[in-house]
């Protein structure tokens, strides 16, 4: 049979395709619907938090930080309750990470505050002596793309039925009407910060990346 396959490339290719497809079908498909279910009463992230998630992706925090607390005492002591599948139901993409050069962040919102993050992002070794994390000063001046975050909310609502309210709609008018809500949330974060330039930017209607990022980190609980 193998000799025959080696003389018939079409069937050889078909054979390979069948053999390599099994695993995915058996391991991924059966549990798909169940693994997609959120926890009861769980709310999707706000638009500002989504913008913060984009900053998290842009500066690629998952290179060093995980968001997956494993069910070991040493981990629950350090980070809090172990992670549940349903908590990730609205995360597109999942941001579990695969490397902890820095600590896990899945419940960082429980034990770190806005002002801590502000000082830490500006100069990590000052807050945590010995830290090898780089400073992310550019996040204090770069403007977060809240319109794209809103576009993401619209997309997941329309396509995946993520439970956002009726005010999230894919029109320019709807976005113009919603924008002040995002800015108000950003102002709340900025009020807890000390950086004057950040406060000024928010007052002018621009959200610095660091504000969005902190909103996201605070939502990780």
């Amino acid at each position, binding site marked *: 049979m193998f000799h025959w396959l080696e003389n018939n490339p079409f069937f050889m290719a078909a054979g390979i395709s069948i053999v390599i497809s099994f695993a995915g079908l058996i391991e991924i498909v059966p549990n798909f619907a169940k693994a997609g279910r959120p926890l009861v009463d769980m709310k999707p992230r706000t638009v500002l938090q989504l913008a913060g998630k984009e900053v998290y992706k842009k500066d690629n925090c998952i290179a060093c930080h995980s968001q997956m607390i494993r069910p070991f005492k040493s981990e629950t002591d350090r980070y809090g309750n172990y992670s549940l599948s349903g908590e*990730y139901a609205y995360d597109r993409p999942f941001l579990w990470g695969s490397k902890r050069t820095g600590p896990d962040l899945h419940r960082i919102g429980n034990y770190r505050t806005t002002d801590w993050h502000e000082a830490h992002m500006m100069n990590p070794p000052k807050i945590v002596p010995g830290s090898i994390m780089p400073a992310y000063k550019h996040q204090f001046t770069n403007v977060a793309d809240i319109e794209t975050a809103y*576009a993401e909310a619209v997309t997941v609502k329309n396509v995946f039925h993520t439970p956002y309210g009726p005010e999230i709609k894919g029109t320019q008018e709807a976005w113009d009407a919603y924008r002040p809500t995002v800015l108000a949330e950003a102002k709340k974060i900025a009020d807890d910060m000390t950086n004057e330039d950040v406060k000024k930017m928010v007052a002018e209607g621009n959200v610095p990346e660091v504000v969005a990022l902190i909103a996201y980190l605070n939502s990780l609980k």
Partner: protein
Amino acid sequence: MQSNAALEYDYSLAKKFTFLTILFGILGMLIGTTIAAQLAFPELNYLLGEYGTFSRLRPVHTNTVIFGFTVSGVFATWFYLGQRVLKVSIAESKFLMVLGNIQFWLYFVGALAATISLLLGYSTSKEYAQYEWPFDIVVVLIWVLWGVNMMGLIGIRREKALYISVWYYLACFLGIAMLYLFNNMEIPTYFVSGLGNPLHSVSMYAGTNDALVQWWYGHNAVAFGFTVPIVGMIYYFLPKESGQAIYSYKLSLLSFWGLMFVYLWAGSHHLLWSTVPDWMQTMGSAFSVVLILPSWGSAINMLLTMKGEWNQLTDNPLIKFMVLASTFYMLSTIEGPIQAIKSVNAIAHFTDWIPGHVHDGVLGWVVFMIMASIFHMAPRMFKREIYSKKLMESQFWLQTTAVVLYFTSMWIAGITQGMMWRAVDEYGNLMYSFIDTVTVLHPYYAIRALSGVMYFVGFIMFAYNIYKTMTSGRELTEEPQFRSPMA
């Protein structure tokens, strides 16, 4: 009718992709060495402003070495050996030549553009699948072009039986096509909402499902990019260089079909102790251990091919590269299954042991084998003798030392870190704060950075040797049959 005269093969495409292999190799390894140094000396994060941080550069490193260096190497060797094992020159079909050139330019421009997009921060944050959707489309196009080219060449072949290497290249094409397509399913937000940045997209899958699909991809992109085509290379280049026949056809069969069937199951070992159901984790673990069989099958088949001819190891550095590559393949494929055992994984996961494992595989196996292939192809493509045997010897020892330093330092670092995270005092309280487990790693990070520099220097020696071969190696009047001539 087929003439009996020896075929003249057309190596123009193989040469072009060889240049890209070297170019992306230099680029990818330079960035890799930089980020390794940043972990030891964090001041190095500020050389390029926001574009130079470890976090921004890390995907640039991984994507450049995977989709830049390795994939070019796969294309280069295919366009060389594909013709030879199928006994047909690609120049016999104008269509395939044009297709190949379109593939080359699209690939070159696409890879550069995608790299810049990562530097700018356009990333889906799915490991080794970070490219945003327009670049994914370019990748798919390139892949389809290559597939059509491969099928085309197979279609006009004179040698009816497909040699083992062709099985592997075919599997590489099919496997990556399936994985890449399913994992990169994403919806551009602009087209749904009419708002925001057109480059942005959201993943089709969420949470645990996304994780499963991602690691089914992530693990098997390694399988079909870093294992399958490289095995295909060694099945061709080792017998060609040594003049020995493959030890066992049956072992090749067992290893090939075994690898095809088993590899894909093992993806979930990246998600042990996560929120993925237990039975999937156990399947991942169990199949990872089974995976030793087909992996070692290939490696042992290669080593036994040298049976009775081990003296070649002492006088031909090219054989040394290939034998060491198979040996590192064996090391890496026994290490992986060990890490996939649940209790070991509890310590190893999230630590530096993982990059340690990856790099003894890629530096010792993938890069060594690709360099050996290029060394073998060079005298035949450029019709010149290899420029310097001595340089090749020094490169071999420098890089071998570098790989050993890399994985030993990362083994120690990983296990230290894993043990410190879980260490408790007599009252059951955690003994170390997280930062203690970071600062303790400094010496190992420094050793790893040093090994990176050594490996990179070795690669520059390789590039220089090939460059000199092309430009000033002694010209050959006829193609060498087995052993590559070198000065």
